[in-house]
């Protein structure tokens, strides 16, 4: 069982603060994509001394949630909290060297948290309506400073939401990882394999969103180019990537974008 001593509590608190700050980028401030799992995961892993956990979790969650778009009033899954919490749970629950099985289990735990984070996002967006009404009422006799204060209070609300959820999830997750360590080897094998399937699920979800066809011609062109360049010519990943970008571009240009 991990001991919730001072360094652990400090790490949990620090992670929650970082989650709150990065979470602002999600909707409230800038939207520079610092909040995306591919950035938030590695950053958290690096901060907590387990970059591998951050890279694995960041890559997997990025693929799974990238096409979940905040269109209109739809509130997408909060992949920032998922990435930060999954990485922190894996890193802190394993003292900085999470096994693949623990990473898989952490990912599974944060999958269960998704409905909770979506509900919290919904509550915050309902509550924020009060800020607009407050500002509208006050500016009748006051200046834009009151409006600015009311508007910027929303940043604090968004920060507190991510901060509080992180504080809630992390201790529970770390305790769950400790219990997972005592489970039979079968569970560990299952979770290790689970991690290896998730990038394929992410790829499937992207294909579903970007293409009308189940077997998309451009997907197959990219696959063949990469498989041939990799297997026959042993080309490095960067070269293969350039090839697939060029292949897609040429296909779009001469295929006339008939989609």
């Amino acid at each position: 069982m991990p001991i919730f001593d001072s360094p652990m509590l400090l790490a949990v608190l620090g992670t929650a603060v970082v989650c709150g700050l990065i979470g602002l980028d999600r909707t409230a401030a800038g939207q520079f994509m610092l909040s995306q799992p591919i950035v938030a995961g590695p950053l958290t892993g690096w901060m907590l001394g387990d970059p591998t956990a951050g890279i694995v979790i960041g890559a997997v969650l990025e693929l799974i949630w990238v096409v979940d778009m905040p269109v209109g009033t739809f509130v997408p899954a909060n992949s920032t909290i998922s990435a930060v919490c999954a990485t922190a749970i894996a890193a802190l629950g394993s003292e900085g060297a999470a096994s693949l099985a623990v990473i898989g289990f952490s990912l599974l735990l944060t999958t269960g948290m998704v409905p909770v984070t979506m509900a919290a996002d919904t509550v915050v967006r309902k509550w924020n309506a009060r800020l607009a009404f407050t500002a509208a009422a006050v500016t009748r006799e006051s200046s834009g400073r009151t409006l600015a204060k009311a508007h910027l209070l929303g940043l604090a609300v968004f920060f507190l939401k991510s901060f509080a959820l992180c504080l809630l999830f992390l201790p529970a997750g770390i305790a769950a990882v400790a219990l997972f360590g005592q489970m039979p080897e079968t569970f560990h094998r299952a979770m290790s394999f689970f991690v290896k399937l998730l990038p394929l699920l992410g790829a499937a979800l992207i294909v579903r969103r970007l293409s009308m066809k189940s077997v998309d011609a451009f997907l197959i062109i990219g696959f063949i180019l990469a498989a041939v360049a990799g297997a026959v010519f042993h080309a490095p990943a960067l070269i293969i990537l350039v090839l697939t970008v060029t292949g897609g571009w040429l296909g779009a240009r001469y295929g006339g974008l008939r989609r």
Partner: protein
Amino acid sequence: MADYDDKKIGAADLLAVFWRSLLIQASWSFERMQSLGFAYAVEPALRKLYPDRAEYEARLRLHQEYFNTQPYLASFILGAVVRLEQDRASGRNTAADVSGLKAALMSPLGALGDSFFWGALKPLAAVTATALLMTGSSWAPLLFLFLYNVWHLGIRASALFLGYANSGDAVDLLARYRFTKMAKLFKVISLSVLGGMLGMLPAWRQEFRPAMNVGDLFLALSGLAITLVLTGIARKGGSPVKIMLGLAACCLALAYAGVI
């Protein structure tokens, strides 16, 4: 020739509006969406244009009306509104329908921006960077931020100045950026890179690569086949959460059966 009380909005004023536009969604709500954020962003320009306190507050109240669009392309509307407010304040166009302009532009630009930025640019940057990250390039997150923000910040900043210069002529914006065509192109390239990522499966980091004692080509083909099966499941309406939980259950069953 009419005598106008010209009030100049300079680059510094537009930059102040741009800086504030980065926080346009700070108080986003279901009911009022970006209404408060829009008023907050345009406020520095109103303060300069309307020295009379009562008029300034009246204009500020006007801009707290309902508003929602794609947050990056909101800068185009902000630029146009600053221009119309300038024309109104100087007496050049006292009948400028600022509310009408906002209402006319926010929905089309919202749909266009969502489709381009969320639906095409973000997947392209993410798939490219993830493919590199999975094959061992630890700097891939920085590439992701670069690929995305070159477009994001470039368009966001230039759209503000363009909106100001052409008073909200959306045709000019569309002619310059051709969002729909670019979105289609980005989606096609994303799919090609995604296929490439699957073709590179034998070169993935060991954390992602299944430990199967088969040839590289067979391994890559297996990955493609599983992806296509999962695409079929996802098309039948499975949410990511449900499919992830289902996959975890399948993995447990396979582990208990001794297959993995």
